């Protein structure tokens, strides 16, 4: 117990880094995922193929391999950034594919009549997507989107192996330093992660009820 209380400052630093990584990556991945979903349903065959290839390749690659490419291959392209930015890039690129699939299922869940009505009053593809379909699609898929955000929160722990001093890295360092209080340190770390993931689950339910589209 003392080990946890003495190192609260370190825990807090790791927690803040994890939170920052989660929030920044979620926003960027959601934006990229929406763009990919729009590409996958667009009338232009090249964009459809590009989007489908991206999603299929990224879904079948482990996040650790994506991290490897971000951390070891990007510097060879003369892109030298901090470890945190590399982690953001890797996490964003990986989860954008899952956000894309969630948004695409939302687009298909919107009633066919909505898209037909939008076409019949003359809206173009981008207009009908932007004004009619996507607003309804997002409101339908709030729980899956938040589930992907929860998965993202847990996946940020992998950044610990690639130089980012976030919660898991702090835990390993403290556990190696205080060999007699390993259980207490891991319980403290688990508590921090549960503080991030459990409320998101409750939030999903409440948010869904508030923004649900009446049918």
């Amino acid at each position: 117990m003392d080990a946890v209380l003495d190192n609260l400052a370190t825990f807090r630093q790791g927690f803040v880094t994890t939170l920052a990584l989660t929030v920044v990556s979620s926003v960027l991945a959601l934006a990229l995922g929406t763009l990919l979903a729009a590409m996958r349903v667009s009338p232009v065959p090249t964009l459809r193929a590009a989007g489908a290839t991206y999603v299929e390749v990224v879904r079948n690659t482990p996040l650790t391999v994506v991290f490897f490419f971000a951390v070891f291959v990007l510097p060879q392209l003369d892109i030298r950034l901090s470890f945190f930015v590399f982690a953001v890039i890797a996490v964003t690129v990986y989860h954008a594919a899952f956000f894309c699939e969630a948004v695409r299922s939302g687009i298909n869940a919107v009633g066919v009549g909505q898209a037909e009505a939008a076409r019949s009053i003359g809206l173009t593809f981008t207009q009908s997507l932007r004004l009619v379909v996507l607003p309804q699609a997002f409101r339908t898929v709030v729980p899956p989107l938040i589930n992907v955000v929860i998965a993202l929160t847990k996946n940020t722990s992998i950044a610990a192996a690639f130089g980012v001093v976030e919660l898991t890295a702090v835990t390993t360092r403290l556990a190696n330093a205080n060999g007699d209080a390993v259980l207490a340190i891991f319980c403290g770390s688990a508590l921090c992660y549960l503080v991030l993931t459990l409320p998101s689950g409750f939030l999903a339910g409440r948010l869904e009820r508030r923004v649900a589209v009446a049918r």
Partner: protein
Amino acid sequence: MTEAVLYDAAGPRGRRRILVGSVAGGVLVVLVVGLAVARLAAKGVFEAERWQVLTRQDLLELIAQGLGATLRAAALAMVLAMAVGGLLAVGRLSRRRWLAAAAGAWVELFRGLPLLLLILFLFLGLPAAGVTISTFWALVGGLTLYNSAVIGEIFRAGILSLPRGQTEAAYAVGLRRGQTLRLILIPQAVRRMLPALISQLVTLLKDTSLGFVIAYAELLRVGRNAVEFLGGRYSIPVYTAIAVVYIAVNASLSLLARWLDRRTRRRLGRTVETSAADEAA
């Protein structure tokens, strides 16, 4: 499906615009990829000598060993996770409230924690308590704890997806709750759960790559060791080969899962839904 009606069949002007868009999009993709390739080529990444390292017999054997270690850990973890997950599902469906609450707490706890944290906890924590543990068992233990929660939920969804009439008919004939589960519900639920279980196996295979953090000699770690032995210039060819192996194995399993899903839907009408979020974890 709404996807199909977002745009009409194009007239002549529309077809021209789509053609222009396709060409422009294609050119853009080629430009971006070409720029990256040119940058890499300038650094000599595409030299034949670097990529010939992939034809070395010892490297190929090493990669095969890594793949074998990955598949072994994944298979064992999947079997154990299904066993524990089955118990969790039955526990959550039990009428004894303490059992349902305990199983529910286990599921919520292990679904809310990162897998890497669980693996590190087993790897660092058990030795501190006096129990020596190998990297293999730390990895398999962590994978089992996490996936038992997810697979328990898949089992529960499978059993709950059956029509209520099955349970009612079983009770009407006089079967007890345990017999109903064993003789009527589980055999039917297994067919529906198969696609979701195979999707979870794909996720589990991807998660075995976390073994590289604790130095278990799985595919990714083997690749890193090879790069450290051969030299940093060979990093891109080796990691690309590793990525291709992962993608090949996972893509074939995903195709199997999707084919099974279509077949099961055609014959039985319903399957357990796989969510995009569970694949991400």
